[in-house]
């Protein structure tokens, strides 16, 4: 029997997905470069070497030893100036990308149709069922083939409307210029050093999301998933007889 192929992702979703993937990787790695310049995190408004650290990843006291290794930073050698150049350039690209993504996704119904779970989907019974399906490595629902499952929808919503805005807000609060223009950001986040700590921790949550996302792609059939994000076409799994 010929497999059924459906058109799964719109061209906007696909283009912005890959643009985002590149940008996120670059801001992440240049962010680790910036972090390496002072690998201690504090809580509150101030914090420097003699102040107690909230999280201390060390590395700055032993010469040549860094908190994050060469392969994780951009550029690979220690260069705070270059790291900042990469970071701010691609942070700007991300701002434009994300604005475009949000505008298009609200207008063309992507958010409402594909991302927001229905009331039935977020009922405890359904969520437990969805979790069970995940544990059995069944990701495609027979009732709605090719659609995101509920846990997947929730994960995407948390990233798009939780973690991404958090990265933006905590990042802006690190800027002394923005702090002068919008001092309420300091009150909201508990000070500049708290904002720096939250910026780092939220970035780590995004790394966690990416790791899970990649594992799910591998488990769900990497070639089919990759193809659907490149050409838009997705091959439905064959009907199983039980």
């Amino acid at each position, binding site marked *: 029997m010929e497999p059924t192929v459906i058109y799964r992702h719109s061209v906007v979703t696909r283009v912005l997905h890959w643009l985002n993937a590149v940008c996120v990787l670059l801001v992440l790695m240049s962010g680790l470069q910036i*972090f390496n*310049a002072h690998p201690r995190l504090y809580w509150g408004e101030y914090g*420097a070497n003699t102040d107690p650290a909230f999280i201390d990843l060390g590395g700055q006291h032993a010469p040549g030893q860094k908190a994050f290794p060469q392969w994780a930073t951009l550029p690979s050698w220690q260069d705070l100036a270059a790291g900042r150049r990469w970071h701010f350039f691609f942070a700007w690209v991300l701002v434009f990308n994300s604005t475009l993504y949000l505008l298009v996704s609200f207008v063309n119904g992507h958010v409402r149709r594909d991302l927001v779970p229905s009331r039935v989907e977020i009922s405890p019974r359904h969520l437990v069922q969805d979790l069970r399906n995940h544990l059995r490595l069944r990701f495609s629902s027979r009732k709605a083939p090719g659609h995101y499952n509920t846990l997947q929808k929730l994960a995407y919503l948390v990233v798009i409307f939780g973690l991404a805005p958090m990265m933006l807000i905590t990042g802006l609060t690190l*800027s002394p210029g923005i702090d*002068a223009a919008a001092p309420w950001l*300091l009150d909201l986040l508990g000070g500049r050093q708290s904002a720096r700590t939250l910026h780092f921790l939220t970035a780590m949550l995004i790394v966690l999301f990416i790791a899970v996302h990649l594992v799910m792609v591998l488990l769900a059939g990497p070639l089919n998933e990759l193809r659907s994000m490149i050409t838009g076409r997705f091959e439905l799994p064959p009907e199983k007889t039980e």
Partner: protein
Amino acid sequence: MTSRILTRRQMLLRGSSVLGGLLLAGCDRLTNAPSFRRVLEGAEGLTYRSQRLLLGSGALAREFRESDLSPVFRSNGTSFPDTDLYQRLLEKEFADWRLAVGGLVAKPLNLSLSALRAMPSRTQITRHDCVEGWSAIGKWRGVQLSSVLKLAQVLPHARYVVFHCADSLESDEDTYYESVDLLDAFHPQTLLAYELNGKPLPVQNGAPLRLRVERQLGYKQAKYLIGIDVVAGLGGIRGGKGGFWEDRGYEWYAGI
């Protein structure tokens, strides 16, 4: 069947690690390519313009209370200048020290420390943010740069104020310097500070006089000041980028 799936998976993994390696090596090479560097540096103009739009000229950096002060105000960069010039000044406890104000001004000045102390002062408790990521809160007292500039009478085609320092981080000739635009120069919180936390500025924090530009990062806060030049452009000065660290790749606009 199983072996085919494994091969496919191995192929994917191997492919992605090769791709990842190429991407990273490519990024390193791009970092060193001057043309690509200029593209990345384009973001600075966008940041500068959008922050100027947001900040206007008046927005003040937050000022804190005495109870918010850092227990220790960290020193960074030079903590004890070893130039002959500075050693001679320090020996006489800055009695011979003068701040030379020149360039595009109608009345060049040569100010002693006591002359600066005799001018009206401003005291502010602000947060100092280092480009490395740490912050420290200190109480500064000094003369508003705007008062000195008004005294010297800035000429109409002036655009920037350049600060010359007595310390050097590398060779003796390569002394520290910095610059700001006139908007920051005339900002009410922009000080020529001679006191930190109620005491004369310690040597490690820039004695006898340092700059405070409160809406920008730490490397703009030039220490060990000896001269101020009002100029129309930064291109012809030293490395041409407007500061010691700017000549080494850092942003001239350090509001981020």
